[in-house]
């Protein structure tokens, strides 16, 4: 019973309380760069979640075979392998998305969320909990990306997931899909998530 609870907790903490982007400020480069539309955000989210879950599982499995001294390079090899798999599969089956995300797919390797979780969680815990942790963190990251992408696409293009929402008369604020819009939107989202966290955990220590 207690084990089930802890796996559930490992999963949910990544969604908001320890959201990798909004709270821990990790993985900022892809967050800002690919969130110009909701679909790009979703694509990056799925790719990063896959790498996160797989690398967490493998790192947790090979724990006994990794000398402490060279654990970081080995984790990097594991992560880079899965990133390349994602890159090849995306190029083969979703070429449009693969082009839209460009160099940010190979750059998942240096996304601090993934190496961070491998080092801080997967190298110390069992396979099941590591997988749950990876999935939670990945979903938290994806959710942030989709939200940010939808927000920027709505204001900057008048649409969400390519479907026109604002109507033909809407003059899109192109600034929102330009780099400055990324910074400003993320600033608002971080502030909003802090406000929500404080409201929900009133009385608790935040």
């Amino acid at each position: 019973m207690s084990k089930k609870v802890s796996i559930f907790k490992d999963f949910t903490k990544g969604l908001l309380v320890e959201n990798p982007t909004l709270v821990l400020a990790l993985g900022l480069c892809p967050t800002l760069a690919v969130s110009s539309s909701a679909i790009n955000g979703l694509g990056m989210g799925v790719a990063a979640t896959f790498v996160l879950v797989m690398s967490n599982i493998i790192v947790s499995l090979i724990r006994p075979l990794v000398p402490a001294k060279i654990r970081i390079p080995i984790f990097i090899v594991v992560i880079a392998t899965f990133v390349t798999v994602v890159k090849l599969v995306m190029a083969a089956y979703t070429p449009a998305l693969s082009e839209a995300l460009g160099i940010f797919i190979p750059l998942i390797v240096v996304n601090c969320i993934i190496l961070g979780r491998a080092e801080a969680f997967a190298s110390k815990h069992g396979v099941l909990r590591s997988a749950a942790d990876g999935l939670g963190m990945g979903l938290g990251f994806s959710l942030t990306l989709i939200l940010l992408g939808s927000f920027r696409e709505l204001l900057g293009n008048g649409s969400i997931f390519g479907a026109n929402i604002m109507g033909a008369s809407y003059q899109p604020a192109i600034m929102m899909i330009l780099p400055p819009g990324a910074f400003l939107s993320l600033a608002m989202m971080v502030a909003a998530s802090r406000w929500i966290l404080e409201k929900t955990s009133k009385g608790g220590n935040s």
Partner: protein
Amino acid sequence: MKDILKPGLILMAYGIIAGLALGLVNSMTAPKIAAQEEAARMAAIEEVLPTATVFETKTEGDFEYIVGYTEESKAEIAGFVVTALGNGFSSTIRTVVGVNTDFTVAAIEIVYQSETPGLGTKAVELDDPTKEPWFERQFDGLPPSDINVDKDGGKLRSITGATITSRAIARSVAITVEKLKTTVGSSLEQEPTEEVIDSTNDIEIVEEGGVE
């Protein structure tokens, strides 16, 4: 020495395993990727030169171009298709250009780019059904001398925040069409006459056969 050697060997072992696994994945996806690229290329070629039904690739030195004919017999040339390569903001942009016989642009289609998502990628809004691909459409009917962004005195409105991308596409298209003009221009004038001679020869042979 042993301190360095052992971790090094372990790391190498991991590297080899990873490399082999990736080789396996690559051998499965590589044909698929190549097929995707070829299909996209063919679709783009048909898109930019809709009047042509038969295509033939020709090379002149290291310059490669495709001649499109209106019908199977290859009697009448509908136009040409060339690929323009331009150095953009973060990628080499590949544009397929359909060219009319008077060397104006029939239509262009950007087939590969990985520019900043949301900026340079605005050049390719074909995938988005709600948007007219206005940037690509601007090229239609222009002679190479007019293909330039407005900031450089041309007729094209560049993409907001992506001047480099716009300029790269415009310049590469203009240069490639110019090059096509100089390579094909002279042979185009000769080609029809050659074909006329050929066909008359054919007819003569048939006629001779008929007489005998």
